[in-house]
């Protein structure tokens, strides 16, 4: 069976509330930089969660790393030192956790020495894909298998449906993979008004090693002068039905899939949410359990049509 995973957030309340899911997961995903703090000399050190996470590890569990701070698209030479420090710390974490693979988001989260935290969209150019490939090659010197997640962006430079081509160009090297985040596709499709099937059809699903499933919410009409409401990839709500259907349709077409992860943000699991989240995890497990590889030739159009909202 394809392993099913869950995010470990460095937050005691989250870990307590999600204990049942954490025990049921086959693997755990951590964002390495959320487990660090900076020392006075600039080096990075564990912030106290390493020992706890390792104590939780049982026989059969494994860890994967999913960062947001390496900043795959940044070309600013001034970022090189920070990046070296970052990768040195990831290497130390890898020795501790034995990450099976290490992924980060498409975009630039550190720009001009500033922490944007949200990966900003890149222009989908040859120069940008070359920059991402260089960064992936650096990551590979730390963890052999690396990948890029299709990011969620609220604006794009160009056509959002051109992103799959750009992504595939970024991960074309051996050992470089795609982390397919279905809620990101859903969010982009909702906000930009395209059919998620059109996006998925453009991807080479043989490159996918992990799928992310999560939920989100909507912005308040008061946030924007236009009053427009946007879908947010906030990982704080239920997984939309369409995302479940996307998973059912896409997973069988990813022949190199190594894991499907349910993501949830810390601070968003309140009283009474535990059961609903546990239910989502069991639903995810059930879908993955009944996933059978579909030959690409047969799985094409019918599966894609299943994604179109009724």
């Amino acid at each position: 069976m394809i392993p099913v995973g869950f995010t470990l957030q460095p937050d005691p309340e989250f870990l307590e509330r999600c204990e049942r899911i954490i025990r049921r997961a086959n693997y755990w995903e951590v964002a390495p930089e959320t487990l660090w703090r900076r020392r006075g000399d600039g080096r990075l050190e564990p912030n106290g969660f390493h020992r706890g996470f390792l104590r939780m590890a049982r026989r059969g569990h494994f860890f994967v790393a999913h960062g947001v701070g390496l900043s795959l698209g940044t070309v600013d030479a001034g970022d090189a030192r920070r990046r070296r420090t970052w990768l040195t710390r990831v290497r130390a974490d890898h020795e501790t956790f034995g990450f099976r693979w290490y992924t980060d988001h498409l975009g630039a989260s550190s720009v001009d020495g500033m922490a944007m935290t949200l990966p900003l969209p890149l222009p989908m150019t040859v120069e940008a894909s070359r920059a991402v490939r260089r960064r992936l090659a650096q990551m590979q010197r730390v963890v052999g298998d690396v990948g890029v997640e299709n990011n969620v962006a609220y604006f794009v430079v160009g056509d959002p449906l051109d992103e799959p081509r750009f992504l595939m160009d970024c991960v074309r090297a051996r050992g470089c993979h795609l982390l397919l985040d279905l809620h990101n596709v859903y969010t982009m499709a909702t906000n930009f008004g395209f059919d998620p099937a059109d996006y998925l059809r453009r991807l080479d699903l043989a490159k996918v090693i992990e799928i992310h499933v999560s939920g989100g919410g909507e912005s308040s009409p008061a946030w924007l002068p236009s009053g427009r409401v946007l879908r947010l990839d906030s990982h704080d709500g239920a997984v939309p039905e369409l995302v479940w259907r996307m998973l059912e349709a896409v997973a069988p077409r990813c022949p190199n899939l190594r894991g499907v992860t349910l993501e949830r943000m810390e601070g968003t699991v309140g009283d009474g949410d535990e059961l609903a989240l546990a239910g989502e995890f069991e639903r995810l497990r059930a879908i993955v359990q009944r996933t059978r590889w579909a030959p690409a030739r047969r799985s094409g159009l019918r599966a894609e049509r299943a994604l179109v909202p009724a």
Partner: protein
Amino acid sequence: MKLAEYERRVAAAMRARDPVAAMRAIYPNVDADGVRMTALIVARLRFERLLRGSPEAEASFDRDPAAFADSFARYHAEVPPRAFFPADEAALYDAWRDRTATPPPIRSRIVAPRRARRR
């Protein structure tokens, strides 16, 4: 435009008084709502980083959310987000607050008469 220049200008746009105008100077057709939402999320993520790193800031936010939000908005506009970790963000915020703190009103600095102090 070279990628480095694009990235520098987009990062600046995210903290600009008018992010849409700053972005449209680079890409005239960029979606205004998407740019504004991105700038809001960048600010919000910094806000959360600060609250994680500073119990004092968190307490201040709990006491008076509107006043703290105003203070944070000024901080975000004036201080580039060079901190990647919560404790560093808290240190940046404290330094900014110390620099910009309004001196207490003159009256409060008047030394109380001796008799009053004895009471």
